[in-house]
């Protein structure tokens, strides 16, 4: 079979698994460390991804809180669970689940980008809110860990070869 696909050489399950594990490890500091510190009149408040979203909820901005929670917590976790399912499916090879798992792969490939939301948000706030003593937003190390986790999950999805879900499957013919 002629498989002239971009980067096909770098697509393999062990690489995808290693990248997914690294991403899972980075999600721990990403969620425990503060991502932003807001300094207002000498008072300082540091927020993790979760506490930032909870604060938005408390202010009544629950649609925004839901968007942040989905992009920053739900999507990374869904991506890792999905990748785990795909890697298990790839070990098994072609089965009645291959079609469904291929759809999971397409969905993961699409949703992954949206978890970059918090990274752009931190960069934007840090650039805009700089009023010295009055109010300043400072990015913290949690956002670096979070960005690493997001990049690793995107790389893990790219390293996964969806054709491995169909290996040894008989070719359909009409």
């Amino acid at each position, binding site marked *: *079979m*002629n*498989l*002239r*696909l*971009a*980067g096909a050489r770098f697509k393999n399950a062990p690489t995808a698994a290693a990248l997914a594990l690294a991403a899972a490890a980075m999600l721990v500091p990403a969620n425990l460390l503060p991502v932003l510190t807001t300094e207002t009149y000498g008072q300082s408040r540091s927020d993790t991804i979760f506490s930032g979203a909870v604060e*938005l909820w408390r*202010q009544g*901005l629950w649609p*925004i809180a839901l*968007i*942040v929670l989905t992009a920053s917590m739900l999507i990374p976790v869904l991506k890792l669970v999905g990748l785990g399912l795909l890697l298990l499916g790839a070990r098994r090879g072609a089965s009645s689940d*291959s*079609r469904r798992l*291929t759809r999971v*792969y*397409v969905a993961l*490939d699409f949703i*992954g*980008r*949206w978890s*970059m*939301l*918090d*990274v*752009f*948000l*931190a*960069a*934007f*706030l*840090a*650039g*805009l*809110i*700089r*009023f010295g003593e*009055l*109010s300043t937003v*400072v*990015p913290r190390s949690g*956002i*670096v860990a979070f*960005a690493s986790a997001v*990049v690793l999950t*995107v790389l893990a999805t*790219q390293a996964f070869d*969806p*054709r491995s*879900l*169909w290996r040894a*499957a008989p*070719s*359909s*013919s*009409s």
Partner: protein
Amino acid sequence: MGLNAPLICHLCGQEHRAIRLEPGEKALCVRCDAVLAQGVRARSHTALVFAITGLALAWPAALLPFVSAGKFGAERISLLFTGVRILWNSGMRALAVLVLLCGGLLPLAYLVILAVLHAPTRLDRQKSCFRLLVRSANGLEHWAIPEVQVLAVLVAMIKLGSIVNVAIGSGFWCYCAMVFSLLIAQHTSRFNPTVPLSAAGATGAAVPL
């Protein structure tokens, strides 16, 4: 290339024989339903027009005021990459580069590649530079994500609304228009990233081999 080359599904590896498609028609993989090819009007310039429009909008988007914030008489205007500069200066250089790439440079590179691929003087499809461009476009699709930056700015505006006076600048509108142009160029491209390289540019598509 064209109708003689087999179409290989990029998701499941199933090979298909190419057939000619009418504009608007889609060929799906018999095994996994992935879109293998789309029929496009041979002389359609939509992708080229929107790619060039996007490129033209990128400059005002980067140079004009993006968003301004005011508090107790103090006003601060930020440009598209002010946040990148702040991240860089606070020692988070890798993060600054990531934001600069995903929100600025890679979308720009993607627009340039789409414009070159759809330019009236067609590149020879057998040449390695053509294949490299199609491959680059496919790779960039994952990393050029300006639409996520637009959502982030909107979220920030709502978040800040109760604390400071925020106003959207013309740079942000240009950036939104650039993102819109990029999405249209991407979706009307004859070199859609979902179509495998072996079929890129073919107006034909699929019956299983």
